[in-house]
């Protein structure tokens, strides 16, 4: 098993939502892969399709409106799209784990934290009694929850936001998944707590070689945590590259606009460069590039035809008619 093998390959993923007023193409042709031990970042704003991508991988797309209409999601060669829900249950919580923005909805308020972590542990190992208790305490210590013996008997509502997230990570670790999907894991947390959680995730990656898909709108988190990044806009992956190239050598107008619009700590400017216009209306997309109405470089072709994927360097792909001239 080579260290850099591809463990997840997503090919031409299309996840659409069928509503009475039209079809929302939440993910429209997603192509990417994830290697062992890699930290993949998916960045995008509301409506970009980043969360739906993770739900698609886990086959948790809300029915009946949502459906994966096309594409393959190959986890170690097995196509997850073709699996039944029963088969997916074997994968979820085992090989694939997800932590989301609000742990309050993932943690069961009626059971103690220790109980829930114990449940996660027992999926992997048949431990009981004293051994189980020890393992639970160990898992809590790994995520730096102090006074773990007493904390194990606490209920979720007695924990702060940061501690809840750490409990979720602890559960994730207990399952020892190969892929951990973290959907906006720190968005609801304070800055100093966010730093703690991210440090923890870095430790996990190093120790367990877990691959992590980190979904967020926060470019700072992406810059510090990810190896490789996908930028999504209105269901399409508009640019992808390794993290350095994405920040220093990006070529897509949206990526440029996004990064340039951020206030940079330590570099006070008079005015921020902003992207004009409004977020896309997913029900009324033209057949062309969805970013066209807000793009400073658009030409007529952009509103008519969606640009093909082209390579701008090693591992650097993007879709834009005019990237060479910008």
């Amino acid at each position: 098993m080579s260290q850099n093998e591809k463990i997840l390959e997503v090919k031409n993923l299309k996840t659409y939502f069928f509503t009475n007023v039209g079809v929302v193409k939440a993910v429209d042709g997603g192509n990417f892969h994830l290697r062992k031990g890699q930290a993949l970042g998916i960045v995008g704003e509301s409506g970009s399709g980043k969360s739906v991508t993770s739900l698609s991988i886990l086959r948790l797309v809300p029915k009946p409106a949502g459906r994966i209409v096309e594409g393959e999601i190959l986890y170690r060669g097995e196509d997850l799209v073709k699996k039944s829900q029963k088969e997916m249950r074997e994968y979820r919580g085992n090989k694939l784990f997800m932590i989301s923005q609000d742990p309050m909805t993932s943690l069961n308020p009626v059971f103690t934290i220790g109980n829930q972590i114990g449940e996660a542990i027992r999926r992997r190992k048949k431990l009981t009694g004293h051994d189980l208790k020890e393992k639970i305490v160990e898992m809590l210590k790994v995520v730096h929850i102090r006074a773990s013996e007493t904390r194990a008997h606490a209920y979720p509502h007695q924990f702060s936001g940061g501690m809840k997230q750490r409990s979720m990570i602890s559960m994730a670790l207990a399952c020892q998944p190969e892929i951990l999907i973290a959907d906006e894991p720190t968005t609801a947390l304070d800055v100093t707590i966010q730093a703690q959680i991210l440090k923890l995730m870095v430790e996990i990656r190093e120790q367990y070689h877990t691959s992590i898909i980190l979904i967020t709108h926060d470019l700072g988190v992406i810059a510090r945590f990810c190896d490789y990044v996908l930028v999504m806009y209105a269901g399409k992956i508009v640019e992808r590259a390794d993290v350095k190239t994405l920040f220093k050598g990006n070529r897509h107008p949206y990526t440029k606009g996004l990064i340039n619009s951020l206030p940079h700590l330590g570099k006070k400017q008079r005015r921020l460069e902003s992207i004009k216009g409004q977020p896309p209306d997913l029900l009324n997309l033209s057949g062309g590039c969805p970013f066209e109405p807000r793009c400073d470089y658009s030409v007529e072709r952009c509103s008519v035809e969606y640009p093909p994927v082209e390579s701008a360097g090693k591992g650097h792909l993007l879709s834009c008619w005019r990237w060479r001239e910008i």
Partner: protein
Amino acid sequence: MKGESILKVNNLKKYFSMGKEGIFSGKARMVKAVDGIDFSLYKGQTFGLVGESGCGKTTTGRCILKLYGITDGEILFQGKNIHSFEGKERMQYRRAVQAVFQDPYGSLNPRMRVGEFIEEPMLVHGIFNSSDRKKRVEELLGVVGLSSDHSSRYPHEFSGGQRQRICIARALSLNPKLVILDEPVSALDVSIRAQILNLLMDLQEEFGLTYLFISHDLSVVEHISDFVAVMYLAKIVEMAPCEMIFKNPLHPYTNALLSAILVPDPELVQDAIILEGDVADPHGLEKGCLFRNRCFNATDECMEKEAELIEVEPNHKVACLRVA
């Protein structure tokens, strides 16, 4: 550099009573949301109030807006105590101090047309007749970058960024002197934030507005503020002109806060000071510095004595025994 003082806060305290200490106790459990803070706002300036959740920054804003009464201290508007206002003075204060809040979805009444919403403050204060009000609404919509035919629409037809513009238009309708901005861009998409921040800064210049900018996002605060105060657990721990705080932070909490910010630059080597534990519960920290259990610099003295906010260099105040 300092112009006229618009607002002065002296030893402001706001305590909330939540339930009882114990089941049988007669004493109410006090949550000290704001525990003795002082600062001044000067005309045309932006004062940034930063801190994490529970530090008291939002409560401070709400006290200034008279949405809460205060437990102790005073708030002076142009020299007069705002709680001593009667009748006409009260209404004048309402004209002079406005707000923009974080949630663009909760800030607009879903059953009111946008034009009616922007017009309401004028209607309430009895200024202008109906047709002049309509004209002013159109004017305001233009000022915030929306079109006049938006005034007959309902909020659900607008995006988050547009809703914030509508809120800003309403806030401006009475030509206020001071606008309290409580996390005005935190709930917006990243690509929209810059638009709104630019708009706020342009409006400040054009109309000579004073802003109290409350936020947890330090990069944004650095960009927009002239003066900054850092709050932790109901107190101000450091206060200085913007550049000074960001270039030369003195309080350990400010340092930790700044180092925790993730700069969107993958090549920058950052040594984050990772604070242990969560934002503390002040219960159990009766004596001494409230930050001591997370502070990497704490000494025995910090356990006993609480630090006062002292000016350690011109305009730069810090509340830390190790720094003084």
